[in-house]
């Protein structure tokens, strides 16, 4: 599904190298988790995959089902099946949440040569999916993320993911700023989307999210590289001993 090879990335504006050769393959139907200390390059990886400006790929490749992601505009990547759940979902005053969702869904359908969803079908679908995430009608009407609590913002991300039905979901610290109940709700939303045709890349600092979204593979990232890969037990090791032991072992 997602194949990243020897990916080197630096900031466009400065000579700072952030990713220094990332190799990673996420298979369809699998959940991969990336853990790592602050500044290891986890969020940068998610931005580079989704096409945010400000980064320069100096070496390596990233493909989704064989298609070169790095050549695509962000909206083309979205239509190809990439979805990034933001660590800090953006507030957009003046744009209604529902209008935004419908525009996004139909833009992707159009890009894929499919018919647009009718207003009635869209409404039916969004209401059903919102309900399971405990998103009420009022939240759908309000401007995108404006005045939403931390939990509401993250649930709104998962709602978008559910509506857009991407092939490859990247969750950037989706657990940050959430209390236990909110985290469970978000995890349930994610688990409901687990499917043999869909891959997940879950970026997190902490093991606790992985109690609720069970990963198949766990990677440890440090200083711009994946330094260790293992099963779910690797997350527990981090939780118990911190990163220091693993990093010492690798170095």
């Amino acid at each position, binding site marked *: 599904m997602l194949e990243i090879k020897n990916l080197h990335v630096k900031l466009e504006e400065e000579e700072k190298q952030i990713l220094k050769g990332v190799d990673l393959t996420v298979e369809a139907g699998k959940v991969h988790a990336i853990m790592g200390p602050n500044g290891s390059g986890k969020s940068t990886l998610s931005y580079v995959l*989704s*096409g*945010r*400006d400000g980064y320069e790929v100096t070496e390596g490749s990233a493909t989704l089902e064989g298609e070169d992601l790095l050549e695509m*505009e*962000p*909206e083309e*990547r*979205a*239509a190809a099946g990439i*979805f*990034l759940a*933001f660590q800090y*979902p*953006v507030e*957009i*005053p*003046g*744009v209604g949440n529902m*209008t*935004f969702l419908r*525009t*996004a*869904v139909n*833009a*992707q359908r159009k*890009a894929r040569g499919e018919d647009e969803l009718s207003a009635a079908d869209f409404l039916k679908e969004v209401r059903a999916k919102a309900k399971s995430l405990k998103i009420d009608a009022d939240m759908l009407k309000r*401007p995108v993320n404006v005045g939403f609590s931390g939990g509401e913002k993250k649930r709104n991300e998962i709602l*978008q993911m559910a509506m*857009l039905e991407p092939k490859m979901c990247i969750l950037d610290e989706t657990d940050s700023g959430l209390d236990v109940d909110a985290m469970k709700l978000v995890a349930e939303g994610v688990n409901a989307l687990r499917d043999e045709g869909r891959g997940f890349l879950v970026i997190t600092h902490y093991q606790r999210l992985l109690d609720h979204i069970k990963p198949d593979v766990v990677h440890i990232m440090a200083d711009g590289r994946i330094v260790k890969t293992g099963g779910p037990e690797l997350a527990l090791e981090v939780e118990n001993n911190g990163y220091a032991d693993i990093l010492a072992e690798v170095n």
Partner: protein
Amino acid sequence: MALPEVKQTATEARLATLTMPDAGCTRAAREDALARVLEMGLPGRRDEYWKYTRPDTLISAEQPHAALFHSDEPLLFGNLDRLKIVFIDGVFSAEESDDLELEGVNIDRIEDICCKDIHWAKELYGVLEARGQSPVQRPLAALNTAFAADGVAIHVTGKPAKPISLIYRHASETSDAMLHHIIRVESGAEVTILENGPAASRFNKCIEIDIADGGTLHHVRAQGRDHERCAATHMFTRLGQESVYKSFTLTVNGVLTRNEQVIELTGDDAIAHVAGACVGDGDFHHDDTVFVTHDAVNCESRQVFKKVLRNGATGVFQGKILVKEGAQKTDGYQISQSLLLDDDSQFLAKPELEIYADDVACSHGSTSGAIDDTALFYLRSRGVSVKDATNMLTLAFLAEAVDEIEDEVLSEAIVNRLEGWLSRHI
């Protein structure tokens, strides 16, 4: 004091091209207005009030020229049930207009008010304009009072069932039009006034609005698409106790537009909201000049102006709130913002507060900025194209001003017009 020679010459040259209409009972008001023009002179580029907008084409003695604009876009407010009053190049067209009969309102042409002995009209024509000449001079409005050849007097005594729609058609590439309307809203009466159309190659328009205690006037205006036209408009509004005035203006295109709003809150608990949204591309200059005077207790005023500018377009905002002595509990708000879609465009703002009462809340803010990159990326990451995402964010920027329109049908018509412009220009 004698006028500077340049101003004197320019004023005389312009006046030489104009003839005062032979309009019986407004004659005295017109003569007074002409005297004001002679005393003030027409605006010149050295005038402080015209620092950001060059008045040259608005006062020039030369015949203006502006190409007509042809579009397949349906006319604004086209599907709306309304009473249509049509002016072609500044001349009333009985043929194109509806019958001017509507319950709750009396409508007459300015030239007819004399023979009908309509006292309120005689007492209003030129009066609010004259009051509005201080503390800042507005010579183009005085020129209009003196020479406007047409216009209507609207007397609102009830709550007419549909809006009164003033439609300004532009038919001649060299038209130079002046219109002067007067509106009196009686106590407890309520009306919606619509204005749209490019009007003329050069358009000078003045409206005097007197709202009695408890009266309400809604005003929604869309200024025309003929790109080469220029316009100077004035609205002078006096509000009585517990009266309401809400005005919104959309401007798309136009090489030069100067819209002045002069508002006087003279009765307690009155409310005045003025808002504007404009979108300009290239050779576009748009100036909103607003002067709100609070002269009563517990009144509320709001000014919300948003401008989207690109390819070297210029936006100007001069907005003032004057709170007179004794106008306690005043609530004054003013915001002017521009969205600059490139580095070539500019926004010039002069927000002013002048307060002589000690128990008031007044705020003002003015900003200029570009499209928010983070928001743009967020939308694109969900599959929305750059163009659509930019349009969404641009409309969102304008929303605060458009939201000032209370009537949903009208605000939808305005949003449609904006979407049309964005799809053609971005």
